[in-house]
């Protein structure tokens, strides 16, 4: 068994183990042990990658290639580069934190952790795949458990939100599927065999007409998951109804699949299509950046605020990817990571506040800093990271994105960039507004005076997420070196 396949096999083994458990206690212990092993594997992978990278010059390392469906030339083809290693690490941390945060899932605990791990399997599989078919397969595996996770354990209009989310994402995969088939049947343009392998297709000059036709399909197909305006509407409803751990995984990991897919498939395989269409999608994503930020100001539900803030932040990822240069792309990947940790942290904290006060309406909350200082302080830190304060991961990412975007010298790019930068100011407004209303000031409700402090599992979960945010912010260079090196082969198509 190679080091990468384990990431798919282990969750499956944990799922099988979970099936035989009885009650919440056993289920959460198994899930925790499994997630800790995954985190260990991810850290091990990181070091193994750093070592391998210095001696191995290929784009993907630890590759493995097994023929699956011979007739279609479908392979089980896996491999990683610096970007996927970083995202795998992100996933494993958030999954572990999610298990801690769901420590008290009384309703159908076994099924909850099984669904959570199915989702994780899909995400890991997606990040290690370098074959379009397997990638698509894992993409759908990652999306479908969301229906049960939101529908069974959610709150509010959960049936509606779960259905909306599932149908929108599956509808997007319709576009994606056609796009993938389009690439597949053009992969013999240079006379070779038809193939789904990303590396082989990258060598082929896909005809310009086909690139122009299929780029928007693939881009939208993936970007719906990355909350591209105007296809973002599933995201706020979905987040608001989802249980805490699912919001964390969803915003922290699942939405990253969108940006990653755009980068890996749309940009890498259809570079000419990307150049042709970039102006159109830049407008859409910049609209998302601004719109998400302004929408967040108007919300009073904590989860909606963060969901719209995610729309804004992830819009920035797509925006950066469309800038088609190294600095911006580096920023996009960093932003993916930083937003992953940050949003997961936000949602974890919101979950904690909600379980204590039973409300997410900020106008009903107040003075929490005096009652539950630990949770409140972490909330302030997460907020500051989110608005891009130097010293946290958000600053590094956004700096790179805007510097990169400004490197495009024409009028259009510069104007759009300037408009998008203004979203940072708006971000500060909605973050500080929440902090002001919810955390500062007098305690509005007598019963809040006796709220319990954070428990050990909550503290662990939160600290797990906080460490990387500070880590990336203080020492970004080793990470961005790793990413920059991996970006190199992807740039050749567009420059």
């Amino acid at each position: 068994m190679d080091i990468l396949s384990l990431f798919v096999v282990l969750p499956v083994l944990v799922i099988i183990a979970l099936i035989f458990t009885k009650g919440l206690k056993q289920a959460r212990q198994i899930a925790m042990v499994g997630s800790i092993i995954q985190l260990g594997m991810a850290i091990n992978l990181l070091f193994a990658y750093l070592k391998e990278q210095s001696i191995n010059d290929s784009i993907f390392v630890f590759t493995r290639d097994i023929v699956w469906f011979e007739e279609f030339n479908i392979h089980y083809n896996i491999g990683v580069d610096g970007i996927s290693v970083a995202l795998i690490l992100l996933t494993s941390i958030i999954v572990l934190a999610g298990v801690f945060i769901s420590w008290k899932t009384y309703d159908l605990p076994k099924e909850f952790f099984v669904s959570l791990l199915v989702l994780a399997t899909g995400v890991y599989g997606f990040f290690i795949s370098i074959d379009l078919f397997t990638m698509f397969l894992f993409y759908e595996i990652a999306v479908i458990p969301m229906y049960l996770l939101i529908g069974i354990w959610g709150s509010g209009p959960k049936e509606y939100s779960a259905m909306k989310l599932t149908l929108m994402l599956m509808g997007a995969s319709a576009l994606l599927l056609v796009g993938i088939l389009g690439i597949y049947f053009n992969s013999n343009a240079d006379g070779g065999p038809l193939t789904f392998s990303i590396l082989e297709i990258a060598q082929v000059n896909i005809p310009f007409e086909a690139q122009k036709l299929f780029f928007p399909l693939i881009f939208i197909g993936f970007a719906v998951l990355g909350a591209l305006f105007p296809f973002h509407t599933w995201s706020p409803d979905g987040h608001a109804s989802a249980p805490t751990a699912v919001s964390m995984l969803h915003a922290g990991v699942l939405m990253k699949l969108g940006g990653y897919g755009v980068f890996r498939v749309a940009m890498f395989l259809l570079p000419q299509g990307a150049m042709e269409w970039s102006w159109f999608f830049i407008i859409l994503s910049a609209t998302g950046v601004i719109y998400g930020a302004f929408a967040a100001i108007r919300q009073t539900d904590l989860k909606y605020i963060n969901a719209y803030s995610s729309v804004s932040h992830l819009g920035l990822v797509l925006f950066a990817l469309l800038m088609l240069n190294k600095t911006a792309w580096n920023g996009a990947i960093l932003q993916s990571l930083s937003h992953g940790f940050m949003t997961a942290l936000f949602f974890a904290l919101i979950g904690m506040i909600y379980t204590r006060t039973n409300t997410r309406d900020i106008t009903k909350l107040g003075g929490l800093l005096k009652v539950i200082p630990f949770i409140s302080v972490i909330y302030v830190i997460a907020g500051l990271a989110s608005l891009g304060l130097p010293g946290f991961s958000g600053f590094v990412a956004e700096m790179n994105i805007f510097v990169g975007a400004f490197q495009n010298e024409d009028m259009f790019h510069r104007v759009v960039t300037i408009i998008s930068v203004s979203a940072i100011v708006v971000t500060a407004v909605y973050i500080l507004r929440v902090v002001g209303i919810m955390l500062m000031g007098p305690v509005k409700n007598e019963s809040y005076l006796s709220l319990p402090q954070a428990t050990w599992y909550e503290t662990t979960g939160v600290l797990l997420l906080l460490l990387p945010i500070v880590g990336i912010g203080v020492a970004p260079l080793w990470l961005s070196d790793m990413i920059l090196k991996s970006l190199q082969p992807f740039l050749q198509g567009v420059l």
Partner: protein
Amino acid sequence: MELSSFFLMRHEMVLLAIALILIIAEILIPKQKKSSAVHLAIFLFGIHTALGFFPLEESSLFGGMFRTNSLIHFFKNVLNIGVFILLLQSADWIQEKIVKLNRGTEFFILLFFSLLGMYFMISAGDFLMFYIGMELSTIPVAALAAFELVKRSSSEAGIKLILSAAMASGISLFGISMLYATSGSIYFHDIIEVITSNNLTILGFVLFFAGLAFKISLVPFHFWTADVYEGAPISVASYLSVISKGAAVFILMILMFTVLKPLMEVWENMIYVIALATMFVGNLFALRQQNMKRFLAFSSIAQAGFILLGLITGTQLGTASVVYFVMIYIFSNLAAFGVVQAISLKTGKENIDDYNGLYRTNPKLSLIMLLALFSLAGIPPVAGFFGKFFLYTAAASEGYYLLVFLAVVNVTISLYYYLLVVRAMFLRTNENPIPFFNNKLYMRLGLGITVIGIMVLGLYSPLYDYIYELSAVFNQ
């Protein structure tokens, strides 16, 4: 002709023998022991299914009226497995409801004769044999649909089926006579040589197609489907939706890819429109259904639309993908019908609302249903995903990107109503849920095999490659 060449008809002869044995058994077994006939029938058919896997030569009989080759042989085995699962799933129903009326053996005899008709239909080498096979496969099913004599809706289903089937086969025969008029032969291998695209031939083809389209329940020949499925016993509805449909699709595909290939320019456009109409009508009507049987009826209409995606290609890839999909579809649909059957037998409940909170009382049945619905919807990693993906690939290989896109949009629509059932089972709670019950051995076996099929058939890739190799016979 040597006597040994009759062994080419091994499937047919063994099945006929079983049916005859059952007739004798019906006479010999005393009245109070009639339920043992059920065990006998299942046992004999199990042996028949196993015997089917022995290799068979490739040849033809009676001057080309009857032919067999490796793909036909393979498909007969698929049908056998499907019928075997169906028998396991309906054994309890027969023992509890039908044996009391002293008609248990009858059910098996009729079912086996219908299956025999399908064998002849897919093995046909000329239109006469084809027509006889088609009739033989339809008429016993009409009797089966009316099997629950105490229920008026069952008789209604029977009469609806026989009347519309008679109409359809009449139209089909009319079409065949026109094809005969233009080509001067009813033998497929003669027709291939002389067929050209002229008006009378096209008219003949269209009429002939209508007859089979009725059996596959393609739009606009689908009106009988929902009523018959609702009224008929669940086993019979299940038989109609998987076995009968599968066999009809198979022979239609063979004929279109070989005999009627010169008319491809005509049927390409026709299939395109019918595929879209079938998918949209099936899916949109399924959205509002409350009764599980009607629900599965419209879902199976929509599935037939997807099958046409492979039919439109006229290539080896298309043949292989259709056979592969039909096989997976048989397993998935049988699993869904099996669960409906089990619940209906124990509680008499057949509405989606009755399934509310099913997971909390009957987790195993709910999970089987979940797998079956995901497979029907085409969600990985279960088999349905692979079946659908290869159908899309086959259609896209001929450049039908728009059709593929609309098909995948249809998958999204279908996902909505499949998720409605999932929602009822998993998300909803019920003050008066279906109580926990244990299934008997036969039902458990019947469901178990389908689950294994759904899990394994997709991931196990050599199977597809094998089917692809077999498909070469019809695509030279």
